[in-house]
Protein backbone atom coordinates (compact mmCIF):
# COMPACT_ATOMS: atom_id res chain seq x y z
CA UNK A 1 0.00 0.00 0.00
CA UNK A 2 2.60 2.44 0.97
CA UNK A 3 5.13 1.37 -1.62
CA UNK A 4 6.32 4.77 -2.67
CA UNK A 5 4.92 5.92 -5.96
CA UNK A 6 8.28 7.01 -7.24
CA UNK A 7 9.57 3.48 -7.11
CA UNK A 8 6.86 2.33 -9.46
CA UNK A 9 7.22 5.05 -11.99
CA UNK A 10 10.92 5.08 -12.64
CA UNK A 11 12.27 5.34 -16.16
CA UNK A 12 14.38 2.44 -17.42
CA UNK A 13 17.97 2.92 -16.23
CA UNK A 14 20.92 3.43 -18.56
CA UNK A 15 23.75 0.91 -18.96
CA UNK A 16 26.00 2.77 -16.56
CA UNK A 17 23.28 2.97 -14.02
CA UNK A 18 22.55 -0.68 -14.49
CA UNK A 19 26.11 -1.53 -13.66
CA UNK A 20 25.98 0.77 -10.67
CA UNK A 21 22.79 -0.85 -9.51
CA UNK A 22 24.05 -4.36 -10.04
CA UNK A 23 27.23 -3.65 -8.12
CA UNK A 24 25.30 -1.87 -5.41
CA UNK A 25 22.84 -4.70 -4.91
CA UNK A 26 25.58 -7.31 -4.98
CA UNK A 27 27.54 -5.46 -2.36
CA UNK A 28 24.48 -5.03 -0.19
CA UNK A 29 23.52 -8.68 -0.48
CA UNK A 30 27.04 -9.69 0.38
CA UNK A 31 27.07 -7.48 3.41
CA UNK A 32 23.66 -8.76 4.39
CA UNK A 33 24.75 -12.36 4.14
CA UNK A 34 27.82 -11.66 6.20
CA UNK A 35 25.85 -9.88 8.91
CA UNK A 36 23.24 -12.60 9.01
CA UNK A 37 25.83 -15.33 8.91
CA UNK A 38 27.55 -13.70 11.86
CA UNK A 39 24.35 -13.52 13.81
CA UNK A 40 23.54 -17.05 12.90
CA UNK A 41 26.84 -18.29 14.22
CA UNK A 42 26.25 -16.34 17.38
CA UNK A 43 22.65 -17.33 18.03
CA UNK A 44 22.45 -20.87 16.69
CA UNK A 45 24.26 -22.60 19.58
CA UNK A 46 22.23 -20.59 22.04
CA UNK A 47 19.05 -21.52 20.22
CA UNK A 48 19.84 -25.20 20.15
CA UNK A 49 20.88 -25.09 23.75
CA UNK A 50 17.72 -23.29 24.80
CA UNK A 51 15.40 -25.53 22.85
CA UNK A 52 17.03 -28.60 24.28
CA UNK A 53 17.04 -27.09 27.75
CA UNK A 54 13.33 -26.40 27.50
CA UNK A 55 12.65 -29.95 26.53
CA UNK A 56 14.86 -31.30 29.27
CA UNK A 57 13.23 -29.13 31.86
CA UNK A 58 9.84 -30.48 30.89
CA UNK A 59 11.12 -34.04 31.01
CA UNK A 60 12.67 -33.54 34.41
CA UNK A 61 9.45 -32.06 35.69
CA UNK A 62 7.38 -34.91 34.34
CA UNK A 63 9.66 -37.53 35.80
CA UNK A 64 10.19 -35.61 39.00
CA UNK A 65 13.95 -35.57 38.52
CA UNK A 66 16.48 -33.33 40.14
CA UNK A 67 18.72 -30.93 38.23
CA UNK A 68 21.58 -33.37 38.49
CA UNK A 69 19.76 -36.13 36.67
CA UNK A 70 20.74 -36.93 33.13
CA UNK A 71 18.29 -37.13 30.27
CA UNK A 72 19.11 -39.33 27.35
CA UNK A 73 17.40 -39.44 23.99
CA UNK A 74 16.60 -42.53 21.94
CA UNK A 75 15.69 -41.97 18.31
CA UNK A 76 13.82 -44.48 16.23
CA UNK A 77 14.21 -44.95 12.46
CA UNK A 78 12.42 -47.17 9.96
CA UNK A 79 13.83 -48.54 6.76
CA UNK A 80 11.78 -50.55 4.29
CA UNK A 81 13.80 -52.86 2.11
CA UNK A 82 11.07 -53.92 -0.27
CA UNK A 83 8.46 -55.45 1.97
CA UNK A 84 11.00 -56.13 4.67
CA UNK A 85 11.23 -53.69 7.50
CA UNK A 86 14.24 -52.77 9.57
CA UNK A 87 14.08 -50.73 12.73
CA UNK A 88 16.93 -48.70 14.18
CA UNK A 89 17.17 -47.35 17.68
CA UNK A 90 19.83 -44.75 18.34
CA UNK A 91 20.69 -44.27 21.97
CA UNK A 92 23.28 -41.98 23.47
CA UNK A 93 26.09 -44.35 22.64
CA UNK A 94 24.63 -47.26 20.73
CA UNK A 95 22.73 -48.00 17.58
CA UNK A 96 20.54 -51.10 17.57
CA UNK A 97 19.28 -52.61 14.35
CA UNK A 98 16.25 -54.91 14.43
CA UNK A 99 14.21 -56.78 11.86
CA UNK A 100 10.46 -56.58 11.52
CA UNK A 101 9.67 -59.15 14.17
CA UNK A 102 12.08 -57.71 16.67
CA UNK A 103 15.21 -59.81 16.33
CA UNK A 104 18.35 -57.79 16.81
CA UNK A 105 20.37 -57.84 13.61
CA UNK A 106 23.27 -55.77 14.81
CA UNK A 107 24.40 -53.25 17.39
CA UNK A 108 26.98 -50.59 16.90
CA UNK A 109 28.70 -48.02 19.03
CA UNK A 110 28.19 -44.42 18.13
CA UNK A 111 31.51 -42.72 17.38
CA UNK A 112 32.24 -40.16 20.11
CA UNK A 113 32.63 -37.28 17.66
CA UNK A 114 29.20 -37.96 16.14
CA UNK A 115 27.63 -38.13 19.56
CA UNK A 116 29.31 -34.88 20.52
CA UNK A 117 28.00 -32.63 17.79
CA UNK A 118 27.64 -34.38 14.46
CA UNK A 119 24.49 -34.89 12.48
CA UNK A 120 23.26 -38.10 14.04
CA UNK A 121 20.59 -38.72 11.39
CA UNK A 122 23.23 -38.62 8.67
CA UNK A 123 25.39 -41.00 10.57
CA UNK A 124 22.57 -43.50 11.00
CA UNK A 125 21.81 -43.22 7.32
CA UNK A 126 25.40 -43.94 6.46
CA UNK A 127 25.37 -47.00 8.68
CA UNK A 128 22.01 -48.30 7.51
CA UNK A 129 22.96 -47.97 3.83
CA UNK A 130 19.51 -47.63 2.31
CA UNK A 131 19.33 -48.80 -1.30
CA UNK A 132 17.97 -46.99 -4.33
CA UNK A 133 14.55 -45.39 -3.70
CA UNK A 134 14.74 -46.47 -0.10
CA UNK A 135 14.57 -43.89 2.57
CA UNK A 136 15.62 -44.10 6.16
CA UNK A 137 12.82 -42.42 8.07
CA UNK A 138 13.14 -40.88 11.50
CA UNK A 139 9.78 -41.62 13.10
CA UNK A 140 9.97 -40.72 16.76
CA UNK A 141 11.87 -40.71 19.97
CA UNK A 142 11.71 -41.23 23.67
CA UNK A 143 13.79 -40.01 26.57
CA UNK A 144 15.32 -41.81 29.44
CA UNK A 145 15.82 -40.12 32.76
CA UNK A 146 18.84 -41.32 34.73
CA UNK A 147 19.06 -40.29 38.33
CA UNK A 148 22.13 -41.38 40.25
CA UNK A 149 23.11 -43.82 37.55
CA UNK A 150 19.76 -45.60 37.53
CA UNK A 151 16.96 -45.39 35.01
CA UNK A 152 14.35 -43.27 36.74
CA UNK A 153 11.77 -43.40 34.04
CA UNK A 154 10.99 -42.64 30.45
CA UNK A 155 9.28 -39.89 28.55
CA UNK A 156 7.60 -40.94 25.34
CA UNK A 157 6.71 -38.59 22.53
CA UNK A 158 3.34 -39.42 21.03
CA UNK A 159 0.73 -37.96 18.76
CA UNK A 160 -2.89 -38.53 17.90
CA UNK A 161 -5.40 -36.98 15.52
CA UNK A 162 -7.63 -34.61 17.45
CA UNK A 163 -10.65 -32.58 16.43
CA UNK A 164 -8.76 -30.58 13.83
CA UNK A 165 -5.20 -31.75 13.49
CA UNK A 166 -2.47 -33.59 15.39
CA UNK A 167 -2.27 -33.40 19.16
CA UNK A 168 1.34 -33.97 20.30
CA UNK A 169 2.03 -35.00 23.85
CA UNK A 170 4.71 -36.27 26.20
CA UNK A 171 4.04 -39.30 28.32
CA UNK A 172 6.11 -39.98 31.42
CA UNK A 173 6.35 -43.51 32.83
CA UNK A 174 8.47 -45.07 35.51
CA UNK A 175 10.53 -48.19 35.02
CA UNK A 176 7.45 -50.36 35.68
CA UNK A 177 5.48 -48.49 33.03
CA UNK A 178 3.24 -46.77 35.54
CA UNK A 179 2.08 -43.46 34.15
CA UNK A 180 3.64 -40.50 35.95
CA UNK A 181 1.90 -37.85 33.95
CA UNK A 182 1.19 -36.44 30.51
CA UNK A 183 1.82 -33.06 29.00
CA UNK A 184 0.25 -31.67 25.83
CA UNK A 185 3.00 -30.17 23.69
CA UNK A 186 1.14 -28.97 20.64
CA UNK A 187 -2.49 -28.87 19.56
CA UNK A 188 -4.97 -26.76 17.64
CA UNK A 189 -8.16 -27.68 19.44
CA UNK A 190 -10.92 -25.12 19.84
CA UNK A 191 -10.49 -22.49 22.53
CA UNK A 192 -12.81 -23.11 25.43
CA UNK A 193 -13.62 -26.61 24.28
CA UNK A 194 -10.92 -28.96 23.05
CA UNK A 195 -8.14 -26.85 24.43
CA UNK A 196 -9.19 -27.96 27.90
CA UNK A 197 -7.06 -31.05 27.29
CA UNK A 198 -4.18 -28.96 28.60
CA UNK A 199 -6.00 -28.27 31.88
CA UNK A 200 -4.87 -30.14 35.01
CA UNK A 201 -8.31 -31.57 35.67
CA UNK A 202 -8.15 -33.44 32.41
CA UNK A 203 -4.54 -34.46 31.95
CA UNK A 204 -4.03 -35.41 35.60
CA UNK A 205 -6.69 -38.06 35.24
CA UNK A 206 -4.02 -40.20 33.59
CA UNK A 207 -1.49 -39.75 36.34
CA UNK A 208 -0.82 -42.67 38.62
CA UNK A 209 -2.39 -45.32 36.43
CA UNK A 210 -0.62 -48.59 35.92
CA UNK A 211 0.15 -50.05 32.52
CA UNK A 212 -2.82 -52.38 32.83
CA UNK A 213 -5.12 -49.55 33.93
CA UNK A 214 -4.20 -47.60 30.85
CA UNK A 215 -4.61 -50.59 28.55
CA UNK A 216 -8.27 -50.84 29.49
CA UNK A 217 -9.02 -47.20 30.07
CA UNK A 218 -12.26 -45.83 28.68
CA UNK A 219 -13.61 -42.34 28.13
CA UNK A 220 -16.91 -41.57 29.77
CA UNK A 221 -19.22 -38.65 29.11
CA UNK A 222 -20.41 -38.55 32.70
CA UNK A 223 -19.65 -35.22 34.29
CA UNK A 224 -16.51 -35.01 36.38
CA UNK A 225 -17.48 -35.12 40.10
CA UNK A 226 -16.46 -31.96 41.89
CA UNK A 227 -14.32 -33.49 44.62
CA UNK A 228 -12.41 -35.57 42.10
CA UNK A 229 -11.89 -32.47 40.03
CA UNK A 230 -10.57 -30.58 43.03
CA UNK A 231 -8.21 -33.43 43.80
CA UNK A 232 -6.93 -33.45 40.24
CA UNK A 233 -6.35 -29.74 40.27
CA UNK A 234 -4.44 -30.01 43.51
CA UNK A 235 -1.89 -32.35 41.99
CA UNK A 236 0.44 -29.59 40.93
CA UNK A 237 0.73 -28.40 44.51
CA UNK A 238 1.72 -31.65 46.16
CA UNK A 239 4.39 -34.19 45.55
CA UNK A 240 3.31 -36.95 43.24
CA UNK A 241 3.84 -39.73 45.75
CA UNK A 242 1.85 -37.94 48.44
CA UNK A 243 -0.88 -37.24 46.02
CA UNK A 244 -1.05 -40.84 44.89
CA UNK A 245 -1.34 -41.98 48.46
CA UNK A 246 -4.07 -39.50 49.23
CA UNK A 247 -6.00 -40.34 46.12
CA UNK A 248 -5.65 -44.09 45.91
CA UNK A 249 -9.37 -44.39 46.54
CA UNK A 250 -10.24 -41.80 43.98
CA UNK A 251 -8.18 -43.57 41.37
CA UNK A 252 -9.92 -46.80 42.14
CA UNK A 253 -13.37 -45.26 42.09
CA UNK A 254 -12.74 -43.44 38.84
CA UNK A 255 -11.17 -45.96 36.50
CA UNK A 256 -12.40 -44.04 33.47
CA UNK A 257 -11.31 -40.77 32.01
CA UNK A 258 -14.05 -38.15 32.20
CA UNK A 259 -14.32 -36.41 28.88
CA UNK A 260 -14.15 -32.65 28.63
CA UNK A 261 -17.64 -31.22 28.42
CA UNK A 262 -18.49 -30.63 24.80
CA UNK A 263 -15.20 -31.99 23.52
CA UNK A 264 -15.47 -35.74 23.56
CA UNK A 265 -13.51 -36.10 20.34
CA UNK A 266 -10.47 -34.35 21.75
CA UNK A 267 -10.71 -36.34 24.98
CA UNK A 268 -10.93 -39.64 23.17
CA UNK A 269 -8.06 -38.62 20.91
CA UNK A 270 -5.79 -38.05 23.87
CA UNK A 271 -6.85 -41.20 25.67
CA UNK A 272 -6.41 -43.32 22.56
CA UNK A 273 -3.06 -41.71 21.86
CA UNK A 274 -1.84 -42.36 25.39
CA UNK A 275 -3.07 -45.91 25.30
CA UNK A 276 -1.37 -46.64 22.00
CA UNK A 277 1.85 -44.83 22.81
CA UNK A 278 2.26 -46.70 26.07
CA UNK A 279 1.42 -50.08 24.57
CA UNK A 280 3.84 -49.59 21.68
CA UNK A 281 6.53 -48.26 23.96
CA UNK A 282 6.38 -51.30 26.17
CA UNK A 283 6.61 -53.63 23.21
CA UNK A 284 9.66 -51.79 21.95
CA UNK A 285 11.33 -51.59 25.30
CA UNK A 286 10.98 -55.32 25.68
CA UNK A 287 12.96 -55.70 22.47
CA UNK A 288 15.72 -53.17 22.83
CA UNK A 289 16.11 -52.30 26.49
CA UNK A 290 18.98 -54.68 26.99
CA UNK A 291 20.85 -53.57 23.93
CA UNK A 292 20.98 -49.83 24.36
Amino acid at each position, binding site marked *: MSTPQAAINTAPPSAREMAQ*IAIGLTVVCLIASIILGGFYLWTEP*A*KEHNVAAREQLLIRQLLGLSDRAEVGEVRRYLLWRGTNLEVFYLGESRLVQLDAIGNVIATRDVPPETAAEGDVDAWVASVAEPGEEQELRYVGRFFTGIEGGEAAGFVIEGKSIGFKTWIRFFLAVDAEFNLLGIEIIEHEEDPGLGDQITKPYFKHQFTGRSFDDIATIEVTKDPLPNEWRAALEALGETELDDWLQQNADNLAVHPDIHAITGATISSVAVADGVKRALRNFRKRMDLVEDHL
Partner: protein
Amino acid sequence: MSTATTRTSPPIGTLLMRGLFDENPVFRLALSLCPAVAVTTTVKNGVMLGVAVFVVQVLSSVSASLLRPVIIPKIRVPLFVIIIAIWVSVMDMVLAAFYPDIYAEVGLYVKLIVAFAIIISRMELFAMKHPPMPAFWDGFGMGLGFLVAMILTGALRELLGSGSVFGIQIVDFNPLLLVILPAGGFFTIGLIMALFNWVDVKRGIAVKDDYKGCHG
Protein backbone atom coordinates in the same frame (compact mmCIF):
# COMPACT_ATOMS: atom_id res chain seq x y z
CA MET B 1 2.31 13.95 5.08
CA SER B 2 3.67 17.30 6.01
CA THR B 3 7.06 16.05 7.14
CA ALA B 4 7.81 14.66 3.75
CA THR B 5 8.30 18.08 2.25
CA THR B 6 10.21 19.84 4.99
CA ARG B 7 13.75 19.01 5.94
CA THR B 8 13.82 20.86 9.19
CA SER B 9 13.37 18.24 11.85
CA PRO B 10 10.26 18.51 14.00
CA PRO B 11 10.78 18.49 17.78
CA ILE B 12 11.04 15.15 19.50
CA GLY B 13 7.75 15.64 21.30
CA THR B 14 5.89 16.03 18.03
CA LEU B 15 7.54 12.96 16.59
CA LEU B 16 6.57 10.89 19.60
CA MET B 17 3.00 12.15 19.72
CA ARG B 18 2.59 11.48 16.05
CA GLY B 19 3.65 7.90 16.42
CA LEU B 20 1.61 7.35 19.56
CA PHE B 21 -1.67 8.93 18.59
CA ASP B 22 -2.08 11.10 15.52
CA GLU B 23 -0.53 8.63 13.13
CA ASN B 24 -0.58 5.54 15.25
CA PRO B 25 0.57 2.83 12.86
CA VAL B 26 -2.05 0.34 13.98
CA PHE B 27 -5.13 2.33 14.86
CA ARG B 28 -4.71 5.25 12.47
CA LEU B 29 -2.73 4.22 9.45
CA ALA B 30 -3.77 0.57 9.58
CA LEU B 31 -0.43 -0.12 8.00
CA SER B 32 0.96 -2.80 10.23
CA LEU B 33 -2.05 -4.77 11.19
CA CYS B 34 -1.38 -8.04 9.62
CA PRO B 35 0.63 -10.12 12.04
CA ALA B 36 0.22 -7.56 14.76
CA VAL B 37 -3.36 -8.36 15.53
CA ALA B 38 -2.89 -12.08 15.55
CA VAL B 39 -0.50 -12.28 18.46
CA THR B 40 -2.34 -10.01 20.87
CA THR B 41 -4.30 -12.76 22.57
CA THR B 42 -2.00 -12.17 25.51
CA VAL B 43 -0.04 -9.09 26.56
CA LYS B 44 3.16 -11.08 26.69
CA ASN B 45 3.01 -12.02 23.04
CA GLY B 46 1.94 -8.51 22.16
CA VAL B 47 4.88 -7.00 24.00
CA MET B 48 7.23 -9.46 22.35
CA LEU B 49 6.18 -8.57 18.86
CA GLY B 50 5.87 -4.92 19.79
CA VAL B 51 9.44 -4.83 20.97
CA ALA B 52 10.59 -6.68 17.88
CA VAL B 53 8.89 -4.17 15.63
CA PHE B 54 10.13 -1.29 17.75
CA VAL B 55 13.72 -2.44 17.43
CA VAL B 56 13.45 -3.20 13.73
CA GLN B 57 11.82 0.17 13.11
CA VAL B 58 14.47 2.13 14.96
CA LEU B 59 17.35 0.20 13.48
CA SER B 60 15.95 0.38 9.95
CA SER B 61 15.25 4.10 10.17
CA VAL B 62 18.68 4.84 11.52
CA SER B 63 20.33 2.57 8.96
CA ALA B 64 18.50 4.26 6.14
CA SER B 65 19.45 7.67 7.46
CA LEU B 66 23.08 6.71 7.90
CA LEU B 67 23.28 5.18 4.46
CA ARG B 68 21.68 8.21 2.79
CA PRO B 69 24.89 9.31 1.06
CA VAL B 70 25.51 5.96 -0.60
CA ILE B 71 22.00 4.86 -1.44
CA ILE B 72 21.31 4.90 -5.16
CA PRO B 73 17.88 6.48 -5.45
CA LYS B 74 16.71 4.16 -8.22
CA ILE B 75 17.11 1.06 -6.12
CA ARG B 76 16.36 2.50 -2.75
CA VAL B 77 13.19 0.45 -2.33
CA PRO B 78 14.93 -2.90 -2.82
CA LEU B 79 17.68 -1.62 -0.55
CA PHE B 80 15.16 -0.72 2.13
CA VAL B 81 13.66 -4.16 1.85
CA ILE B 82 17.06 -5.75 2.27
CA ILE B 83 17.86 -3.55 5.26
CA ILE B 84 14.57 -4.46 6.89
CA ALA B 85 15.06 -8.11 6.06
CA ILE B 86 18.47 -8.03 7.71
CA TRP B 87 17.17 -6.55 10.94
CA VAL B 88 14.12 -8.78 10.95
CA SER B 89 16.30 -11.84 10.48
CA VAL B 90 18.51 -10.66 13.28
CA MET B 91 15.55 -10.14 15.58
CA ASP B 92 14.15 -13.49 14.53
CA MET B 93 17.35 -15.31 15.36
CA VAL B 94 17.83 -13.50 18.65
CA LEU B 95 14.29 -14.17 19.81
CA ALA B 96 14.40 -17.78 18.68
CA ALA B 97 17.61 -18.28 20.55
CA PHE B 98 16.83 -16.54 23.81
CA TYR B 99 13.04 -16.58 24.15
CA PRO B 100 12.05 -19.97 22.79
CA ASP B 101 8.77 -20.07 24.75
CA ILE B 102 7.20 -17.00 23.26
CA TYR B 103 8.92 -17.49 19.96
CA ALA B 104 7.05 -20.75 19.55
CA GLU B 105 3.84 -18.75 19.49
CA VAL B 106 4.79 -15.61 17.58
CA GLY B 107 7.66 -16.88 15.44
CA LEU B 108 5.90 -16.71 12.11
CA TYR B 109 4.73 -13.20 12.77
CA VAL B 110 8.17 -11.98 13.74
CA LYS B 111 9.40 -13.08 10.33
CA LEU B 112 6.49 -11.31 8.70
CA ILE B 113 7.57 -7.95 10.12
CA VAL B 114 9.54 -7.75 6.90
CA ALA B 115 6.31 -7.02 5.04
CA PHE B 116 5.28 -4.26 7.42
CA ALA B 117 4.39 -1.28 5.31
CA ILE B 118 4.93 1.14 8.18
CA ILE B 119 8.66 0.48 8.43
CA ILE B 120 9.46 1.00 4.79
CA SER B 121 7.20 4.03 4.61
CA ARG B 122 8.99 5.72 7.54
CA MET B 123 12.29 5.04 5.82
CA GLU B 124 11.09 6.48 2.56
CA LEU B 125 9.16 9.42 3.97
CA PHE B 126 11.35 10.45 6.86
CA ALA B 127 14.66 8.70 7.38
CA MET B 128 15.80 9.30 3.79
CA LYS B 129 15.42 13.03 4.29
CA HIS B 130 16.71 13.49 7.79
CA PRO B 131 19.92 12.95 9.77
CA PRO B 132 20.22 9.94 12.05
CA MET B 133 19.05 11.58 15.28
CA PRO B 134 15.64 12.75 14.06
CA ALA B 135 15.32 9.51 12.12
CA PHE B 136 15.98 7.70 15.37
CA TRP B 137 13.27 9.65 17.16
CA ASP B 138 10.84 9.20 14.31
CA GLY B 139 11.44 5.47 14.33
CA PHE B 140 11.27 5.55 18.10
CA GLY B 141 7.89 7.27 18.03
CA MET B 142 6.43 4.97 15.41
CA GLY B 143 7.86 1.87 17.03
CA LEU B 144 6.57 3.02 20.38
CA GLY B 145 3.17 3.70 18.88
CA PHE B 146 3.10 0.16 17.62
CA LEU B 147 4.31 -1.23 20.93
CA VAL B 148 1.69 0.70 22.85
CA ALA B 149 -0.98 -0.48 20.45
CA MET B 150 0.16 -4.04 21.01
CA ILE B 151 0.08 -3.66 24.77
CA LEU B 152 -3.30 -1.98 24.72
CA THR B 153 -4.88 -4.59 22.49
CA GLY B 154 -3.15 -7.45 24.21
CA ALA B 155 -4.16 -6.27 27.66
CA LEU B 156 -7.77 -5.79 26.66
CA ARG B 157 -8.01 -9.14 24.96
CA GLU B 158 -6.23 -11.03 27.67
CA LEU B 159 -8.29 -9.40 30.37
CA LEU B 160 -11.62 -10.09 28.70
CA GLY B 161 -10.67 -13.37 27.15
CA SER B 162 -8.95 -15.04 30.06
CA GLY B 163 -9.39 -12.69 33.00
CA SER B 164 -5.68 -12.13 33.36
CA VAL B 165 -2.97 -9.66 32.37
CA PHE B 166 0.60 -10.85 31.78
CA GLY B 167 -0.65 -14.25 32.78
CA ILE B 168 -1.60 -13.04 36.24
CA GLN B 169 -5.20 -13.77 37.07
CA ILE B 170 -6.95 -10.48 37.78
CA VAL B 171 -10.61 -11.25 37.74
CA ASP B 172 -12.22 -14.62 38.03
CA PHE B 173 -15.21 -14.83 35.74
CA ASN B 174 -16.60 -16.72 32.85
CA PRO B 175 -14.19 -15.39 30.23
CA LEU B 176 -15.47 -14.03 26.96
CA LEU B 177 -13.72 -16.55 24.77
CA LEU B 178 -14.89 -14.63 21.74
CA VAL B 179 -12.31 -11.97 22.43
CA ILE B 180 -9.36 -14.25 21.90
CA LEU B 181 -10.80 -15.75 18.74
CA PRO B 182 -9.93 -14.09 15.43
CA ALA B 183 -13.37 -12.52 15.25
CA GLY B 184 -12.93 -11.02 18.69
CA GLY B 185 -9.54 -9.67 17.66
CA PHE B 186 -11.13 -7.80 14.81
CA PHE B 187 -13.88 -6.53 17.09
CA THR B 188 -11.41 -5.34 19.68
CA ILE B 189 -9.27 -3.46 17.20
CA GLY B 190 -12.38 -1.98 15.62
CA LEU B 191 -13.60 -0.77 18.99
CA ILE B 192 -10.24 0.77 19.89
CA MET B 193 -10.16 2.51 16.52
CA ALA B 194 -13.65 3.79 17.24
CA LEU B 195 -12.35 5.05 20.56
CA PHE B 196 -9.61 6.97 18.76
CA ASN B 197 -12.28 8.44 16.49
CA TRP B 198 -14.35 9.34 19.51
CA VAL B 199 -11.40 11.22 21.01
CA ASP B 200 -11.10 13.07 17.71
CA VAL B 201 -14.77 13.97 17.78
CA LYS B 202 -14.36 15.28 21.29
CA ARG B 203 -11.33 17.28 20.20
CA GLY B 204 -13.40 18.73 17.41
CA ILE B 205 -11.54 17.05 14.57
CA ALA B 206 -13.57 15.63 11.72
CA VAL B 207 -13.37 11.87 11.54
CA LYS B 208 -11.56 10.74 8.45
CA ASP B 209 -14.09 8.77 6.54
CA ASP B 210 -12.57 6.68 3.82
CA TYR B 211 -15.91 5.51 2.73
CA LYS B 212 -18.02 8.31 1.47
CA GLY B 213 -15.34 10.35 -0.23
CA CYS B 214 -16.20 11.91 -3.52
CA HIS B 215 -19.17 10.09 -4.89
CA GLY B 216 -21.66 11.78 -7.19
